[in-house]
């Protein structure tokens, strides 16, 4: 197990490096002058050539690309992601300040996704090819095809404006988290329920299930103790991938519900052309996503020993 973990951690290093290259390359090689964009965004209108050149020098944009990249990587490694143009403060501070709110949203979204997705898939599998199955799968289908902002707006309309049960916006109190979490979780619930269904159907056809039924176990025990336990293993891998969806969805969800998170910070940074902030946010989110997937992989290997020895 120790060797497996070490191996996975080591594998992470080149991927992280490549991601820093991609982020840097996209931001610096694609057309568009960061300094000009920043001046236009920050100081509005009149951009003098001198001011532009000063800023280019200040930002190190006149140096060769490789030197720029080296500086970017070196600073990022010690946690320095540069200075935001709009907020005039350290990007790292801004990111860390907003991250807990996004993490809270992503975790509760994942919780909702599992809370809806797993039972939905189970019911569909147990009642395979009946109207129950068809209904459950239709719900999951709609969930997976739903624009996240639209679901958010519908939920606000229903539960905040008409029924007045929950707040429509903000981030104070636990009740303000419910609608965003459901919005975010529902899409993934669709995918998870389909996976649980097919995985459980496969497991239910296994010999050991027939054996446990044959020896007279109650169906409930067969399901909970033998079938579900094995059926849920593949679900764990998708949970890590779903965390990426959660981050993506958080960008939209935070805007719909006016939550001050990292997603909204990123979008506002793009809209206000705050280059260093965009770069920092994306790098941070990508790293968070990789680390979550690393943890999921380790959990998976721990649950399923075949993985550890497979490779």
């Amino acid at each position: 197990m120790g060797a497996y973990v070490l191996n996975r951690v080591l594998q992470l290093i080149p991927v992280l490096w490549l991601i820093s290259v991609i982020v840097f390359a996209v931001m610096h090689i694609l057309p568009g002058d960061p300094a000009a964009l920043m001046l236009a965004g920050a100081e509005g209108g009149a951009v003098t050539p001198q001011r532009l050149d000063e800023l280019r020098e200040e930002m190190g944009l006149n140096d060769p690309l490789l030197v720029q990249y080296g500086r970017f990587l070196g600073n990022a490694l010690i946690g320095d992601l540069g200075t935001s143009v709009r907020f005039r403060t350290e990007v790292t501070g801004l990111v860390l300040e907003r991250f807990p709110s996004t993490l809270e949203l992503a975790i509760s979204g994942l919780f909702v996704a599992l809370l809806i997705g797993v039972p939905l898939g189970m019911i569909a599998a147990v009642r395979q090819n009946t109207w129950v199955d068809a209904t459950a799968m239709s719900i999951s289908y709609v969930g997976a095809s739903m624009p996240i902002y639209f679901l958010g707006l519908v939920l606000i309309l229903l539960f905040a404006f008409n029924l007045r049960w929950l707040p429509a916006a903000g981030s104070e109190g636990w009740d303000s988290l419910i609608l965003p979490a459901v919005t975010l979780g529902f899409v993934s619930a669709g995918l998870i329920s389909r996976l649980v269904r097919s995985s459980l159907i496969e497991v239910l056809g296994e010999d050991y299930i027939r054996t446990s039924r044959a020896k007279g176990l109650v169906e409930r025990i067969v399901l909970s103790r033998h079938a579900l336990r094995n059926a849920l293993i593949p679900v764990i891998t998708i949970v890590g991938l779903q965390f990426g969806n959660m981050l993506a969805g958080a960008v939209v969800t935070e805007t719909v519900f006016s939550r001050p998170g990292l997603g909204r910070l990123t979008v506002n940074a793009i809209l206000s052309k705050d280059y260093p902030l965009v770069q920092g946010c994306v790098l941070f989110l990508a790293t968070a996503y990789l680390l979550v997937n690393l943890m999921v992989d380790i959990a998976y290997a721990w649950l399923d020993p075949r993985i550890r020895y497979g490779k």
Partner: protein
Amino acid sequence: MTPPATTEAGEINADAGGTPRWIRRYVKNKGAVFGAVMLGGWILVALFAPWIMPHDPYETLGMARQPPSDMFWFGTDLLGRDLFSRVLLGSRVSLQVGLISVALGAVPGVLMGLFAGYFGGTIDTLISRFVDAMLAFPSILLALIIIASLGPSLQNVMIAVGIGTIPQYARLVRGSVLSVKSLTYVEAARVVGNRPMRIMFRHVLANAYAPVVVLSTLQVGNAILVGSGLSFLGLGAQPPIPEWGLMSAEGRDVLRRAWWISTFPGIAILSVVVACNLVGDGLRSALDPRMRVDG
């Protein structure tokens, strides 16, 4: 009827005489037929939108925020424009986003997969490493930085969403190529003296096209979804384009008093994406039952 073909992907071309087997399998699937009808309906709407729109979608016609009525079926928006006409015209924008983004991702992705799989060696290693790195990166983040450097617009959304789908195509095609590369008929094509390019495109790619079609159909729905989300955030289509995500965003602040402004465009998106997904899944099980991936 000739006996059913047993080759891997050759089934599509099986009994060329009658209705192809995959079509017969497809029409047995109720969901897939429903999806095809719905998607067909939207394509017709997109094609004929200018002629079936009851009003000018760009012109202020009456009071702003009028609820749905006989005159304005979906009501009017913030500027008093007819929402129904705007939703109809919006189908053009969305289908365009779906098709162009997918083309932008599929063409380079398929080529990369083809070269990696066919030539192997260093080319394969380089392409595969690149693909792995892209897959390790949530595609929305890639889309966000691309838009950050190109600037928010509908065109840049298509580029950003398209680039994000490249690795999936590359990986898919590489796999298919590897599975047929050493088969006898490819060997034969080489022995007869065909050039590598011709073998790749005429013989090897022909066997990978079914999964590419399936992936593309599903990707059209996904691209529409992601694209409209980006427009909702203000990073894509700019006013006065009747883009569904942007229209939903325009109605967001008046949701309490004018629910219809956000709701109808939202329903439109949902129905197009459901249709694409139903068709994609239907094709997947019709073209190759073993290709079924649940989840």
